């Protein structure tokens, strides 16, 4: 019984969103737009659930002296620091909240993002081995495109940059299209299974 209502809500919400796409007539336009707004409010309201869990996990880690518990206060203080400065001083520019974001959170994000330059290199070194003919194709097309990106490529043979352009505009487009069309079929089928309640394990119900 506990599953019928949620599944009914999923069905109605799903059908409203689909009809909102096809039917401009009144009830669906109003319902569709409101539903999208409501969904955003519920999802962002749920963030308190997450941060409560975060605080619970770290306070528990300190209480039970779990491994690396000495670092948990850093997370708690960091969280409270941003929360309090955000609530008191607001998010305007040059206020403490924005100062902390621009000088700590943003650089940390940029640094983690830049780790990719190192990992791309180590992944290329290990993965681009001509172990079978498919891996050889992967390796050659990556190598050719890299060569086409830098002047050394043009030095070796002035058609190499053209090879890069060809690889990126023909096989890359074909591969991406095949993946996108296939994935879209998977999305439609999964959405149908959700909306019609055929797949219900996500609700934690016996299916």
């Amino acid at each position: 019984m506990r599953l019928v209502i949620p599944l009914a809500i999923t069905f109605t919400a799903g059908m409203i969103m689909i009809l909102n796409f096809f039917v401009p007539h009144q009830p669906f336009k109003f319902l569709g737009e409101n539903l999208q707004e409501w969904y955003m409010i519920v999802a962002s309201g749920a963030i308190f659930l997450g941060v409560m869990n975060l605080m619970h996990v770290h306070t528990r880690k300190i209480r039970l002296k779990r491994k690396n518990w000495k670092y948990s206060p850093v997370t708690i203080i960091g969280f409270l620091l941003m929360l309090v400065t955000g609530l008191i001083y607001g998010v305007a520019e040059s206020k403490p909240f924005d100062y902390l974001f621009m000088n700590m959170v943003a650089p940390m994000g940029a640094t983690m993002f830049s780790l990719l330059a190192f990992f791309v290199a180590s992944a290329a070194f290990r993965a681009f081995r001509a172990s079978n003919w498919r891996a050889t194709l992967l390796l050659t097309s990556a190598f050719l495109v890299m060569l086409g990106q830098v002047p050394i490529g043009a030095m070796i043979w002035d058609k190499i940059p053209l090879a890069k352009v060809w690889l990126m505009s023909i096989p890359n487009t074909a591969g991406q299209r095949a993946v996108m069309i296939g994935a879209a079929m998977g999305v439609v089928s999964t959405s149908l299974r959700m909306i019609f309640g055929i797949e219900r394990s996500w609700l934690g119900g016996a299916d």
Partner: protein
Amino acid sequence: MKNLSAFMIFLLLFAAGATLADSTDPPESVVTEAAEELEVISAVGLEASDTEEDAGGSVSLTWQMETVGSDPDSLGVIRSGPEGEELITTLPEGTVMYTDQTVDNGTEYSYWIVSYSGGYVQASSEVAAAIPSAQWIYRGRIGMLIILSLMAGVIIYFIESGKKGKELFIREIAGLAAVDDAVGRATEMGKPVLYIPGIMDMDDIQTIASMVILGRVARKTAEYGSALLVPTSRSVVMSVAQEVVKEGYIQVGRPDAYNKENIQYLTDDQFGYAAGVDGIMVREKPAAIFLLGTFYAESLILAETGRSVGAIQIAGTAMPSQIPFFVAACDYTLIGEELFAASAYLSREPKLLGSLKGQDAAKLFFMILIVVGVVSATIGDFWSPLKSVAEFLRRLVTVN
């Protein structure tokens, strides 16, 4: 006297205007000389129509401005309807369209555009009338509606036939066959299994598919008795993950082994999450890592660190830009649609296998569409009737 000269100039304008209309490039001198003393231009060719494919209650107006003459200060839109005549808005000169949203369906309204100059109405366009109404269907999306409902029908049909116990074949998917021995390996080595559901929320279909697979993986870890860690980047995903894993453990009869602490929220931030998960990887040293769901640039940060701790990695996403990185860094990669086939493959339930058959039917339909389209377009270059076939197919899949 002033009116006579104004009239003379009007005549001159009229003559210049007439010659201008048909000759392509007017003599330079005539145009500039007449510019100073000209009549204020008015809107012409005003058309009012019910706004296409809307929820009703709006009329679209389009017009051009006369090209010869001095520009008005501003334009006014006058509407006459049941409540009489009123100026509904003033617009900067040079505007050529306006949509009036303040009307009721079913009543007739007539409009005209007036040009203001020096605070007075100097010129006015002819009247145009329209009756606003709501439409029931976006005409441009009918093609998509047909194909989508056809496809949904086929998928539902195969699900029903699956339920009736028809034997359904599904090919080998390497990544999914490896799930069992990945969890088995983790249990032998007494190391945890790490499941990463991507960084998007429960409104993203790949995350929903990932939650369903998590349910299957949870049953295996419950059977084998290894720890299952699930760090999430969204609170709603955390709640669903806790729900799904608990259910997996209950169904295998090991509710006691379910540990809610292992399923935790880190942060909504993409790279904060990547940093946190990397930390978990190097400290807990999981023997099996699942990366299933929506990933963006952080995909390789996770997969490369997972590789460095020596774990078996099974990844899957429908994001075309991230698949190359998973192919390079992981042992098995589910490409696009294979991620959505996972729940059917792992559960072997007839109704889920049926939906895969429906997906194959849809792919077959599109493949035939493409082949027929390309053949008829190519031959159409030389024998024109076929070109209309290609054109028809393109229009069928056009959505606007």
